[in-house]
Every structure is written in structure tokens, then in C-alpha cells.
């Protein structure tokens, strides 16, 4: 019997439900897990705080997309506002608005987790069949339908000239029209996001989804979670309607993603272990440049080329390079200045390319950020930027500027509060003297990981190597928050793979 999608406006009285497994969050982890558990005959209920949106809703207005499909209306950020946090909030989670890039978890990262964090359950050998399964279901393949768009081609050209690694990356798309609107909600249903794939799989197998339903807290009796209390939200205002949903289950899964899963545990009073700590962001810095040729950085598949030339930098924080889709709204968000300076930057958008550098945090001695709940009930993320980060940002700026110049840029421009421009390799050295860090230049994150780290030691982890909470026998966490470090690659496929792997033993435990 097919399951149902229940939306906030369908509920006008309190609801109490019973099931085998209640999963909080319908993103990359929750949907894959729900589909596998439902297929195994388990009665599954998914709770999702965001709304259900599909192709007819995607009007390709980015400001509206931010308000509807992104956490905090697109305004989520670290507590000091130094880092803008792009994270999804909708059925399908961040998969609804991500830029489709997929990588398997690097073997070195899995080895690090085993050696340093006691994660002896995951290896390339263990995860490969799960990666193969999700790749088949989601159409994950190297991008080849169209040539890389001009912005990605420039990254490749710059890397080629510098003799640096670059490669075509893999995307979870089928029938992609190369439009460039992945971050707005795919208007062609080409992006194989969860709402088109594993979620319908779960529904067909009998799972029910409650959208517009925000899990407030778990309740427990000793080591067993007994229920999850949720509030129904008004889709337009995101305010509670006064209607509650209570789910009792044999097993519970937190799959709301980094930041949200730790927050749920904290609201529940589950403060045993380092909940919220070691939250990692792949902090992103960007450098723009103008070219003689038209670039139109908003058009075409947003990401098709990447470079991992500097992913290993010894004791220093590793970096990988990609490009972002630069629609006018995102370009405005990216540039810190205003007035005539902002107009000047936006007026050249057609001929602008932006390269981004993502820092691989948590692999060295850096400890990342911490999620907490403040006195007004708001989720707060503190992410201190240290000398290690500043060194990485300085290195990244020099590398990205070099790439632009090697690719033929006529003017390179940083996104500092007072932007610095340069036009030749001889000026690169001046980048070393610029200030780096919080509020010196814009910093972003589109990848949030950690906060409920997996590990064998309950003192330094929240869940065990099987993703079971150290202190609750029937509670699991299955999303990117379980990663003990960041990955150095885009995290979506790692989350799909871990969820696919975890389904077998979670099903056995019910």
C-alpha cells in the first residue's frame, strides 16, 4: 500500500502516530534510509520541517528560492555572521537546492576515521556496493552531456596552464538541460534529488511523510527514546500553527543534517558527549575576475570541473577548487561593497568568472565549530577562524588569482571589504599582505558536516561506528553530522552511501 505526503495545511488537530521507525529529516540521509527500511517491510514515518515543493513551484527567482527552500530564508550564518551558511530546508533537504556534484568518500578520509576516531565499520570496500547502488539510482556519472560552461572551462584552462590537477566531476542528473538553475530547484526534474528518487521509493513502499512538521524534541525513558514531539508549521510564515504531531516508534533516526541534528539532540536534553562540537563547513573563499570574452557565469551546469591539486598541504589545511553559479542575486551576496562599487561589479557580470576554494577543515588539529541553542531558542553556530584558516585563505587567494591570470583574465578582484585588484602575476605577492579571516572578506559554506561525530569512544563521539547513539539504544543519527572530519570533497554521495549502508543494520535492530 502506498504511503502519503501529509502537509501542514492538512492538519487542524493534534496527531499521534505509531510506527516502526521515525526518521527526522528527508534529505540525503533520511530519504535513502526511509526507502531502504520501507522496502524491508518496516513501517516508516518521516518528519520534515520544510515544505513539499516540486517542479511547478520552481519559478527560478533566487531571492524567492532562498526564502522558501533554504534554512532561515537563506540567511543562516555563523553567530558572528562571518560565514554565510547555504543549507536546504524542504522535502529533500539540501538535495533540492545543491549543485549536483558527487564524489565517493576519499579512502584517506575513511582511513583517518578508523585510525583516529575508531570508526572500524567503514572502508572503501564496505561502502563500494552502496555507492554503486546510489549511483545507479541517482544517475551519478561524469558530466559529459554538454561541454563545461565557460566559467568551468576557464578553471580548466587555468589549471592546464599552471600544470595543476583538474578533472570532470560527477553529477546526479538525468536529462539535464544545462540551464544552471540547480540552486533554485531544478525546473526540468533533471537533478535526481531526493523528492524525485528515494522519497517516492519510500512512499511507494508504504512510508508516510509529514512535511511542514518540525521535530522539537525527543522524549526518553532511560536509554530508550519513546517519542518525538513535533509542531506543524504554517508554510508561508514558518510559524507554528498550534497543531502538534507526536510519533511513537521502536526506533528513531535523526537525519536533519549537520547543525539541525545536533540542535535536535540539544533541545531534547541529550547533552551526553560532544553534541554540536566539531562542526565542519568546508569554508569557502572566492576570487573573481573579468575576461575579454563573455562568460555568463549564471548559465550552464554550475559545476563540471574541479581541482584537487592542493588537497594535501602537509600540516596546513588542504584546499580544493570549484566554481559557483553566479546569478545576480548571488553575485550581490558575494561582493561585500555597495553603491557604485557594487554596481561596477555587477555591471561586468557577463564577463566575470568566480573561482572558489573550499578548505578541508577538521583533518588537522583544527576543531571546527560548535552548535548550541541560545536563550531565545535559536540555533547558533560558533565557528572561530584561526591562524590555520587564515593561512589557508591566504594561500587560496594566491592560487585562485594565479588561476585567473593563467586563464587569461584581464583584472582579478578579491571579495575583501575593500576589494583588491591585480592584473599581472607580478602583483600576486601583494595578496599575502591583505587581511584574512572573519569580516575581512566574504566566506561561505555549502557543505555542513559533523556535530554528532561517529566514533568508538563515547567521550569524543556522539554515535558509535554503527551510527547508534552512545547513550540511547534505539536512536541513530544518519546524515552528514556523523562525519568526524570534513571530507575534502562535496559530501552528498558520502551521505547517500552511509545511509544506504546503515539501513541493513538499522532494519535488523527494529
Amino acid at each position, binding site marked *: 500500500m502506498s504511503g502519503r505526503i501529509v502537509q501542514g495545511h492538512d492538519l487542524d488537530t493534534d496527531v499521534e502516530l505509531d510506527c516502526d521507525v521515525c526518521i527526522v529529516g528527508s534529505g540525503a540521509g533520511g530519504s535513502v534510509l526511509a526507502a531502504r527500511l520501507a522496502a524491508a517491510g518496516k513501517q516508516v514515518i518521516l518528519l520534515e520541517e520544510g515544505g513539499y515543493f516540486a517542479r511547478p513551484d520552481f*519559478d527560478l527567482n533566487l531571492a524567492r528560492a532562498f526564502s522558501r527552500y533554504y534554512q532561515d530564508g537563506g540567511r543562516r550564518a555563523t553567530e558572528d555572521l562571518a560565514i554565510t551558511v547555504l543549507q536546504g530546508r524542504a522535502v529533500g533537504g539540501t538535495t533540492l537546492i545543491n549543485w549536483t556534484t558527487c564524489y565517493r568518500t576519499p579512502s584517506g578520509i575513511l582511513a583517518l576515521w578508523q585510525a583516529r576516531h575508531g570508526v572500524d565499520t567503514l572502508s572503501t570496500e564496505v561502502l563500494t556496493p552502496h555507492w554503486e547502488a546510489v549511483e545507479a539510482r541517482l544517475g551519478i556519472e561524469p558530466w559529459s552531456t554538454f561541454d563545461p560552461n565557460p566559467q568551468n572551462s576557464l578553471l580548466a584552462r587555468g589549471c592546464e596552464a599552471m600544470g595543476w590537477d583538474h578533472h570532470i566531476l560527477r553529477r546526479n542528473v538525468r536529462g539535464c538541460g544545462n540551464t544552471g538553475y540547480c540552486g533554485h530547484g531544478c525546473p526540468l526534474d533533471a537533478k535526481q534529488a531526493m523528492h524525485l528518487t528515494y522519497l517516492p521509493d519510500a512512499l511507494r513502499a508504504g512510508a508516510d511523510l509529514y512535511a511542514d512538521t518540525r521535530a522539537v524534541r525527543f522524549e526518553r525513558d532511560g536509554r530508550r527514546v519513546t517519542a518525538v514531539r513535533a509542531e506543524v508549521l504554517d508554510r508561508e*510564515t514558518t510559524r507554528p500553527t498550534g497543531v502538534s504531531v507526536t510519533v511513537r516508534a521502536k526506533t528513531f533516526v535523526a537525519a536533519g543534517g549537520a547543525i539541525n541534528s545536533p540542535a535536535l539532540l540539544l533541545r531534547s536534553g541529550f547533552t551526553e558527549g560532544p553534541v554540536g562540537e566539531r562542526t565542519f563547513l568546508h569554508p569557502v573563499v572566492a576570487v573573481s575576475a573579468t575576461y575579454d570574452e563573455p562568460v555568463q557565469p549564471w548559465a550552464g551546469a554550475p559545476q563540471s570541473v574541479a581541482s584537487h591539486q592542493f588537497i594535501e598541504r602537509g600540516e596546513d589545511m588542504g584546499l580544493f577548487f570549484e566554481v559557483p553559479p553566479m546569478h545576480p542575486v548571488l553575485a550581490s551576496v558575494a561582493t561585500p561593497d555597495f553603491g557604485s562599487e557594487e554596481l561596477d561589479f555587477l555591471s561586468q*557580470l557577463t564577463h566575470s568568472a568566480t573561482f572558489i576554494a573550499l578548505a578541508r577543515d577538521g583533518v588537522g588539529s583544527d576543531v571546527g565549530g560548535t552548535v548550541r541553542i541560545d536563550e531565545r531558542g535559536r540555533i547558533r553556530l560558533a565557528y572561530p577562524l584561526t591562524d590555520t584558516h587564515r593561512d589557508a585563505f591566504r594561500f587560496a587567494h594566491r592560487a585562485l588569482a594565479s588561476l585567473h591570470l593563467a586563464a587569461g583574465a584581464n583584472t582579478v578582484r578579491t571579495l575583501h571589504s575593500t576589494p583588491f585588484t591585480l592584473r599581472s602575476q607580478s602583483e600576486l605577492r601583494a595578496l599575502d599582505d591583505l587581511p584574512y579571516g572573519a569580516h575581512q572578506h566574504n566566506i561561505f559554506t555549502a557543505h555542513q558536516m559533523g556535530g554528532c561525530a561517529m566514533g568508538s569512544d563515547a567521550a569524543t563521539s556522539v554515535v558509535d561506528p554503527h551510527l547508534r547513539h552512545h547513550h540511547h539504544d534505539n536512536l541513530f543519527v544518519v546524515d552528514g553530522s556523523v562525519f568526524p572530519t570534513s571530507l575534502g570533497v562535496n559530501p552528498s554521495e558520502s551521505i547517500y552511501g552511509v545511509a544506504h549502508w546503515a539501513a541493513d543494520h538499522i532494519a535488523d535492530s527494529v
Partner: protein
Amino acid sequence: MRITRRTLLLSAAAGIAGSAVAGTGLALAPSKLRTDVPSLKILDQREYSILSAIADTLLPGTDTLPTATAIGVPEMVDEVISLMHSADAEELRLAFRLIENALIGGLLDLRPLPFTRASAETRRAALLRWQTSSIIERKKAYKALKGLCGASYWSHPEVARFTGYPGAPDLGQSSAPKPTHFANEARP
């Protein structure tokens, strides 16, 4: 974003020993209120006037581009604020009052008059000081306001075309079939 009024006012007070009477006068200097205030969700007339002045300073337009107020940016931001967590909305509305305040403006921004009464050049200099301030709460306020105003402004089709962006294509999504599985098929 958390503005600490105490922090800002203490900073101001530290520099004005002996000028309490003048300071009081400045603090109470009236705003220049706009009279063309549309229907608003949460802001009052004064807040709208301050926001309009801020938005038009951030996004002043050109001969061919409209100002932020001309295309309704303050109304759009008003709606966004109405949907925020109440604590976030309170902090942003406090930021409006602090930016407007002539006493703080005089001491920290060399602008001893309300923001709404200042010239375009003076307003611009004031926002630059907020952008680069050593007081983190001022930097945060600037970033929040810039993001809110910029997203609303550059999403306007007339404005976006200035960048060369042709606008979003119609890819048939509005007429695509609606998904199934809804519990209430009459209200998908």
C-alpha cells in the same frame, strides 16, 4: 545578529564627558519621515523611512537603474523581517534605530544628525564606517542589511537585466504535472 545597545552607547558615552545636554538633544533628533509609506507587515513609519534611506544608500541606482525604494525593496525587506524569528527581527529593528541615532552618528560616524536627514554622501560614509567598524555588532548589522536589500534588489527583472542576465527562462515548469502521493489530493 546580536546588537548590544549597551556596548554602543557606552562607546559613545566614553567620548562625550561633559556634553550630556548636547548628547541628549542629538539622541532625540527627529527622523525625516517618508509620507509614501505602503502597507507594511511589521515595520512602522519611522523604521520604514530609515530602511528606505539605508536601502537607497546601498543601492542608489543610476540614470538607467531605479533606486531600491523605487522598486519596493523596503517592502520586500519588511516582509522578510516579519517572517524572521522574533529575536532576529527585534535586533534588526534596533539596528535601524542605532543607525538613525544622531548621538551615535555624531560620535562614531562624524554625523551629528539622523541618518534620514543626512546627505547622500554623508549616509554613504556612515555605512562605510558600519561596514569596516571595529565594533563587531556594527559589521554584522551592515552585512545583514546589505544581504537583505541586495537579494531583493537584484532579483527584480528590470534590475537583473543591467548585469546582462537575460532573466529566467520558461522551461515549462509551471504547467508540469503535479506530483502524486498527497494525502489530500484536492490540495496538493
